[in-house]
């Protein structure tokens, strides 16, 4: 059954309880932050911060909109990270969430470049390439910390005090969200219904996604598909054809040269 998390930006007060709950449940360390003129901290996701609230001040015809966005893995149906992952460490669960098998991860970083939302983070030495495995929100499906499969809500949803976060059957949540968007009217819209085959984190936004720092039309990078569906099969094909050709070559050449020597 396809599951999803629904985030309603119009109900969110950016209290950041979800950010704390995520750290708490997943055993992530707090980070040292500085005051840079915003409540928003830390400045970006990291290996220790899988979910954070973003604060945006957007001008709108002389008035100011203070917009909040939940930033974490969007759990795309057509997930670029899963598509590009060379080892199968990143994989799609049947409920649609993108989980990680850390034993398979080799820190290659391909997913970091492929993700249209810049979500995965890696803490590895630039020089040696060694370090911890890739990290990101797994919708609380991380092995050993798996809430979903044990019948609990994701930590962020569980803690949300305003009802801005909900978890459940994706189809039901889409219906709920569409009703809410109709109720809000104006520029309000649902983000994630069809993007990248349908995101498993749905957003109710009061305005255009760009104003929330979300890409209007996120895409799986072309090279990802080229690499997996063209270049790799081409590589196997070339190796096979060349290898077979050489085998025949050696057998024919030996047979002919030996028979000529015997003829002499």
């Amino acid at each position, binding site marked *: 059954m396809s599951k999803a998390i629904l985030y309603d930006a119009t109900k969110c007060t950016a209290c950041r309880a979800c950010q704390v709950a995520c750290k708490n449940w997943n055993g992530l360390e707090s980070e040292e932050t500085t005051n840079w003129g915003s409540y928003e901290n830390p400045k970006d996701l990291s290996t220790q911060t899988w979910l954070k609230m973003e604060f945006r001040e957007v001008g709108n015809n002389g008035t100011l909109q203070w917009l909040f966005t939940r930033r974490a893995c969007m759990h795309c149906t057509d997930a670029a990270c899963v598509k590009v992952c060379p080892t199968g460490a990143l994989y799609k669960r049947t409920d649609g969430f993108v989980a990680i098998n850390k034993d398979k991860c080799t820190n290659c970083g391909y997913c970091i470049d492929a993700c249209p939302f810049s979500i995965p983070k890696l803490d*590895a030495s630039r020089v040696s390439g060694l*370090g911890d495995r890739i990290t990101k929100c797994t919708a609380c499906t991380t092995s050993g910390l798996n809430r979903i499969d044990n019948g609990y809500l994701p930590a962020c949803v569980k803690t949300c005090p305003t009802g801005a976060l909900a978890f459940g059957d994706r189809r039901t949540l889409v219906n709920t969200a569409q009703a809410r968007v109709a109720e809000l009217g104006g520029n309000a819209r649902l983000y994630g219904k069809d993007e990248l085959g349908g995101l498993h984190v749905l957003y109710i936004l009061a305005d255009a996604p760009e104003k929330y720092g979300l890409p209007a039309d996120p895409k799986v990078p072309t*090279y990802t598909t080229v690499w997996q569906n063209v270049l790799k099969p081409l*590589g196997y094909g070339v190796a096979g054809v060349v290898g077979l050709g050489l085998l025949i*070559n050696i057998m024919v*050449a*030996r047979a002919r040269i030996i028979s000529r020597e015997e003829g002499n």
Partner: protein
Amino acid sequence: MQDVERFRKRAIYHHWWIVGCSFLLAVTGLFLFMETLSPGAWGGYSRLIHRIAGGCFVGGPILYFLLNPKSSLEWIREAFTWNRDDIGWLKAAPSYYFGGPEENMPPQDRSNTGQKLWMLVVIVTGLVFVVTGFLMWISGVSGIAIILHDIAFIVAGAMFLVHFSLAVFHPRMSEALRSMTTGKSSVHYAKSHHGKWYSRVMAGREQS
């Protein structure tokens, strides 16, 4: 049987140095190309080996060039020097390498056309590997760099299979491996496989 010197010791060491580095690079690289092999990446330690081998892959030729600038440049010039005999070689080679008659093969220089083609592939793909690899090392992975790195691998890998098969298994290249290990080949082999070069050596105009 009389022998003639084909390669100097330092050129032989250089060759096998590159072989060693390339082998490590190919194996540790394949972990990211073939999902079935990926457990061999050993949680990322293959990345460290790949980087060390990459450094050695660059360092070897640089050191060789600094010690032997003249013969290095001569080797590069050779790879890029093509004439009518090379066209003749390309036409006659398919039959020849499948055991056909030897008469149609034009006389060859120190390296034959096929070897020069391999030298070109090594130079061009080597540069692509090093530039894209270094960029990914210092500034992180990018799609275009992965694509170029992997195209270079497919081209170099395919040509390597040909190089390996000819040098190790092909009955006509019976002394190729010997000359790259001992540095020597028989006079007969040098005459029949590298006629132009052999006559120059005999005239005392060129060293091996």
